[in-house]
């Protein structure tokens, strides 16, 4: 009935990032302690964690490294240029 439909919709729109309790349904967040160590492999400069796209951003070079299944993908080949449109949420699931 309509009540069931409404609750399903609410689940789908509950969004990204925080709390990976449901596992593969949502993008897993980055392990916070990693931010102490991680830098851009190319410039060795600090990165900014962008929660909305689940990426690590190097503002200076304008590149973003994806975090897939909670694992940051810190190779230049995986990075994208930040002036391009970020990928749609949920589309990066393997």
């Amino acid at each position, binding site marked *: 009935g309509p009540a069931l439909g409404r609750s399903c919709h609410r689940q789908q729109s509950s969004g990204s990032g925080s709390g990976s309790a449901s596992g593969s349904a949502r993008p897993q967040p980055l392990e916070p302690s990693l931010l102490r*160590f*991680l830098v851009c492999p190319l410039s060795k400069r600090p990165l900014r964690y962008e929660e909305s796209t689940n990426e690590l951003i190097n503002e200076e070079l304008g590149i973003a490294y994806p975090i897939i299944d909670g694992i940051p993908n810190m190779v230049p080949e995986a990075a994208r240029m930040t002036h391009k449109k970020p990928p749609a949420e949920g589309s990066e699931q393997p």
Partner: protein
Amino acid sequence: VRLWRCRCRALLSRPAGAVRARRGLAAGPEMHFGFQSVTEEERREKIYQVFENVAKKYDVMNDSMTLGIHRVWKDILMHKMNPCPGTLLLDVAGGTGDIAFRFINYVRSVRQRQLQRKLKHHQDLSWQEIFESYQKDKFNSLGDSQVVVCDINREMLKVGKQKAQHLGYSEGLSWVLGNAEELPFDDDKFDVYTIAFGIRNVTRIDLALQEAYRVLKPGGRFLCLEFSHVSNPLLSRLYDLYSFQVIPVLGEVIAGDWRSYQYLVESIRQFPPQEELKAMIEDAGFFKVDYENLNFGIVAIHSGFKL
């Protein structure tokens, strides 16, 4: 089988120019992939493929090929490291997590002993004080030790992460996809850097060693566990026989992939021997570089310090 023997003979008549490529230095476009000659780019791709293919069967194959002895080698590495709680470890090419899990077990048990000793010296505490000390230390069972596992291969990391979940490892452990030649870590960060059975697969070993030096703190230790060269001639022949006759067959039977294991045994032969690797480690800036042969040189642990 006969084909492999012919390729062995072809290897012996290789031109001397291949030696530079063999050492994983900045050679020309020619590099080795096992006994094949390939470009640097091809080599990286092929090696990525090898580990993508074997990832799920990696642990099973390790046990079969080495008759379980690889576990002892890794235990010895951990005892040599002798980490104390609070140590920050970077395990490169650590894929399926063997070294990381051993590290966690080790510091956890050292920490346990520390806490027990502490408690023994406080025999006259009140129950309240004892309760509070348990609360405090419960959340510090690793004593702030941490291990970061870095690997270039997504499949290997996936297997490692699943194993960690399965075995209940979560605290103090993180996973990063990265290249040993171009590490995504800041300078002077880690107490120990390990690379176990991984450096052989790195295309530019000199770069990997430089990166290892960079990310270690002053006083930090570099440890490399890798297949090496057997000098004893009789043993060497038996080892060759086992490597070339048995291992690829095991690879086909267990993992359905003899080619990857053919690469493995060939890559061992191509890898620099103990003294040469020692020199390369020294070139990267490490001091007090030394090595310890295990099983007559089938495996060696190289160690160096950043001072």
